[in-house]
């Protein structure tokens, strides 16, 4: 585990702040003050805690998450690749750097059912654009790929993000 992935220790107030904000920020001029009022804290404390959690990586970012389907990205594929274990770290770094790849991970195989150990999510406006993205990954991987599949998402069944209890 690298130094930057050391878990950040949350205190009780951090946990209350997370519970109060994980579903979103309110649409009022001073949203951090509104959250502070709700929790009986000062706005300065709320803002300082959010800033600390942002710097520690507990908060990845504060902002908007679009539903990419609604932005016209209608062809979304989870591409999965069977790469020799010795090659997968280098291959993953190359695939993750491609501009159209939104997530890239090494994951375990479940043999004999599932032989794929490298996952890369790709997103195209249409099937043709996505197919070209898959071809580009295949070109980058070359003979290191021993097989691949593209699992196209057909429906979002749930998308709420992380929830923790207060």
């Amino acid at each position, binding site marked *: 585990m690298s130094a930057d992935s050391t878990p950040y*220790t949350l205190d009780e107030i951090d946990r209350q702040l997370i519970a109060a904000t994980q579903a*979103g920020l309110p649409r009022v001029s001073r949203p951090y003050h509104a959250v502070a009022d709700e929790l009986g804290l000062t706005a300065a404390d709320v803002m300082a805690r959010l800033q600390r959690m942002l710097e520690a990586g507990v*908060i990845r970012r504060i902002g908007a998450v*679009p539903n990419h389907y609604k*932005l016209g990205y209608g062809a979304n594929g989870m591409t999965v690749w069977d790469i020799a274990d010795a090659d997968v770290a280098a291959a993953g770094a190359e695939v*993750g750097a491609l501009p159209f790849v939104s997530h890239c991970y090494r994951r*375990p195989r479940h043999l004999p*059912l599932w032989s794929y150990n490298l996952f890369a999510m790709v997103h195209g406006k249409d099937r043709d654009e996505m197919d070209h993205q898959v071809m580009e990954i295949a070109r980058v991987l070359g003979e290191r790929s021993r097989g691949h599949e593209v*699992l196209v998402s057909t429906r979002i069944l749930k998308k709420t993000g992380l929830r923790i209890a207060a």
Partner: protein
Amino acid sequence: MMAAALDTIDRDIINLLQGGFPITETPYADTAERLGVPEAELMSRIDHLLEDGVLSRFGPMYHAERMGGALTLAAMAVPDERFDAVAEQVNARPEVAHNYARAHDLNMWFVVATEAPERIDEVIADIEADTGLSVYNMPKLEEFFIGLRFEA
């Protein structure tokens, strides 16, 4: 799902807000000024984008592992005639953060996020007990650099 009808201001809002929302006294006013729109208009447009589902969330994105929690990706092969019922059983668990239908024998793929890492195995066992189906756990072993934003 059809793409939403968005005007230039909506697109600017989506593109800017994916990059971050400030921690300031008046973050909407500060963001509105950068966009060149009134604060009230920015707030009502964000409300509409959320209502229409163009934005799925707006606020802090918490990182499970850095909070001491855990995340995993899991997959199931669900018979077609049971698909919606099983989706309901899986989605009913608050630890299931995302769930996608995918065209494959393994046709349901979901993310489980828990505060305590040992809860992951319990949630998976519970889903197997609820549904009578095998759940294939595929936790990430390594994360490669990512930087994509969706251009609206």
